[in-house]
């Protein structure tokens, strides 16, 4: 789920990149062939389950062999994911863009969209003394029709 404002919407053909524009043009052509339709495209918006962008700057705030688990909590807040024994924390962020169209029907309409999501996840591991033993910034791109699939899990469920 994402929070978007009307002011975040940009109208085709202004895309962020080539693939973005191509998908927008395809959506526009589909709309034209079907009649009443409003094509739309949104920039990469921060997902609602993300507290903020996780970047290399976030990674650099933690020092292997020195930063403690409490220091990490004080600096970054509660993690998005944690091991049962707090052996590791994850902090994640996701930004999603959408390209599609809203098709008018007789009394209502339906939206069709292609979703592209960029996920960043910081995996922080601790040793038995609660000191940071490794910090890894993991990133992935995922996409799909109506919803992105195969995204890196912010909570680290697969860990």
């Amino acid at each position, binding site marked *: 789920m994402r929070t978007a404002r009307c002011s975040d919407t940009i109208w085709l053909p202004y895309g962020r990149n080539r693939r973005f524009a191509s998908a927008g043009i395809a959506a526009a052509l589909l709309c034209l062939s079907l009649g009443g339709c409003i094509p739309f495209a949104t920039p990469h918006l921060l997902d609602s*389950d993300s507290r*903020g962008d996780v970047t290399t700057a976030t990674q650099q705030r933690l020092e292997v062999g020195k930063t403690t688990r409490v220091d990490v909590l004080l600096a970054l807040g*509660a993690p998005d994911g944690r091991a049962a024994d707090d052996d590791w924390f994850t902090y994640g962020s996701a930004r999603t863009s959408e390209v599609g169209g809203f098709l008018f029907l007789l009394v209502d309409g339906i939206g069709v969209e292609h979703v592209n999501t960029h996920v960043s996840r910081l995996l922080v591991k601790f040793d038995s003394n609660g000191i940071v033993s490794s910090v890894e910034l993991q990133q992935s791109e995922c996409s799909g029709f109506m919803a992105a699939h195969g995204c890196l899990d912010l909570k680290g469920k697969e860990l």
Partner: protein
Amino acid sequence: MLLLQVALAGCVTTTSGGKPDLLAFLEREPVDKFEVLAHLGEPNEAFEVDRVLTYRLTSDRGSLSVRRNDKTKGWEGVSYDLVLVFDANGSLQRHNLVAVRP
């Protein structure tokens, strides 16, 4: 119906009932864990055998309120993550207000 859908797109629900001085008690040392629980209620999360407590706070026109656990909402609407660190006797040692979605 379509016009209504368009008009409602992008709306965000806000909450009221916060206090501008919600965290003022943290500056009156010493502060113990019971005082924190009395002021803020149950924490959103606890770490290090309850030595570290965290609270998700929402800010609305300068007033802060604690947002209770709701796993469906993620960080949406949260302004700060308050981190409180206590010593072995339950006295507050350190705290930090981490900005969310700055």
